[in-house]
């Protein structure tokens, strides 16, 4: 159980941070109460992890082979990277940190699945692009019906509020399904857990983060995001959920934050306004390189550190 401590911490911090991408706008704008959002998100994160989490777990497990010690090193290195980068205020993605640490161990073992790594890298690049494309299509499609719906403004508001809750539930499902691999996949590779155990433990760890610590993050992240009208906010959540779900089907864990930024960018393109600053885009680019690089170096350093032995002199 102690071996899983790093993974549970990683899952907790992932839940605390990434629930904001799903319910941040709705909670910070008081469309949905935090209690409702946290309850719905926790249930659907666990459901997503249990039902569809195996795809990502299989992919990450297949990147390299490792023993239990190395699995622990990977989760500790990834968790440390996420914490360190968050404290320093640098852009970070849990998915990218985990893959970086796996690559570090893979290099050390001399066994790295380059084809699998290529697929993961391509999906990272595709995440914001996918978010933007989904947002454009969903905005156009739903917008057509929204403008023609035979409902008065009070009913339209109530429909938006319920849709936000449903979209958030779907987003939480996609988050659990996609990101649970980051939390426990390495322990499946190391033989400590089977896929279902890994999905459930990872799902509960993420849900714990959502319940215990996502409120301040939801409120600050929701307010930090560009001010969107309620309909656009709904589209962003849906686009993010669809994008992340699509990558779940491909079996690649991706960053929900980058999917959200892509979706917000898509909204900007539809509305002809500047919703994402150049600085934010630079942050995404930095996260692509910094997160895996730092995590890879940390995994190597930790692995080196735990193998140091005192050799008495003659």
């Amino acid at each position, binding site marked *: 159980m102690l071996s899983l401590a790093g993974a549970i911490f990683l899952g907790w911090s992932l839940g605390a941070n990434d629930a904001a991408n799903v319910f941040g706008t709705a909670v910070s*704008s*008081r*469309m949905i109460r935090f209690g409702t959002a946290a309850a719905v998100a926790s249930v659907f994160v666990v459901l997503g992890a249990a039902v569809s989490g195996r795809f990502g777990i299989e992919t990450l497990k297949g990147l390299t082979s490792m023993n239990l010690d190395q699995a622990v090193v990977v989760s500790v290195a990834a968790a440390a990277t996420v914490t360190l980068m968050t404290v320093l205020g640098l852009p970070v993605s849990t998915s990218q940190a985990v893959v970086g640490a796996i690559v570090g161990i893979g290099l050390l073992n001399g066994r790295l699945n380059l084809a699998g790594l290529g697929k993961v890298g391509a999906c990272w690049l595709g995440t914001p692009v996918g978010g933007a494309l989904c947002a454009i299509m969903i*905005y156009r499609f*739903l*917008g057509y019906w*929204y*403008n023609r719906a*035979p*409902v*008065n*403004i*009070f*009913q*339209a*508001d*109530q429909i*938006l*509020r*319920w849709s936000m809750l449903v979209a958030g539930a779907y987003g939480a499902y996609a988050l659990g399904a996609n990101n649970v691999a980051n939390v426990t996949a390495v322990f499946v590779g190391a033989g400590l857990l089977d896929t279902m155990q890994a999905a459930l433990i990872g799902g509960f760890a993420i849900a714990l983060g959502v319940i215990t610590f996502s409120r301040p993050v939801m409120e600050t992240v929701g307010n930090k995001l560009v001010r969107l*009208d*309620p*309909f*656009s906010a709904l589209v962003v959540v849906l686009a993010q959920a669809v994008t992340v779900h699509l990558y779940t089907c491909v079996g690649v864990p991706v960053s929900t934050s980058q999917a959200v930024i892509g979706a917000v960018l898509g909204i900007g393109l539809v509305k002809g306004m500047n919703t994402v600053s150049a600085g934010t885009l630079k942050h995404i680019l930095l996260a692509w390189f910094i997160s895996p690089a730092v995590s890879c170096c940390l995994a190597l350093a930790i692995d080196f550190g735990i193998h140091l032995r005192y050799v008495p002199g003659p």
Partner: protein
Amino acid sequence: MLSFLFRKENRLMELIFKYVETLGRCRESFAEAMQGCVLHEEICQDFEFYLKQTHKHESRADDLREEINDLMYGDTLIPDSRGDIVELLQELDKIPHVFEIVLHMIQTQKLRLPGFLLPDIKELIRISLECCDLVISQVSAFFKKDAGLRALSNTIDTNESHCDHMERKIITGLFESGLDPFQKILIRDLVAQIGRISDQADRVSKFINILSMKRRV
């Protein structure tokens, strides 16, 4: 069919329409007071009654507005819409307030309108009241999501320009007359207040247009 889902929203809509109805009643009392009593050589006996009625409806409108605000901030509607509706009702509520001010000016300052100004003032009041009717229709259409908001807004805008023109004409005629200067100033202030009705109606109408555009995606 799904009305149980919209229980609070339906109650809110009911209250808003009650508010609009009260505004209409306030406008009726004001019209009776002005057209039936003031716009004659002598102010009729019923003026006090209509003044009280106008005040009663204005107070009732205020109470309804409070009730609407309480219901909205008790978790009905999304915050964006709440702010918009509060602002819309706040702007709309200035119209009955002006009705009351005009009648109180006539009552407390014991104003008598000179005969040569009566036709123009009658016309000014008629158009101002028409603006008020149109804005009431526009508010109802906005909440029911009916079409024709833009057409109503254009008519209110035209009427408002006509009211401005009438107001200038009346004030020019007033200061060209041989009335007592003190009387001139009091009547000028009264005419300016009457002019505020169409100005406010136009402001509300333009705000509704913005809200309607904002809600389109």
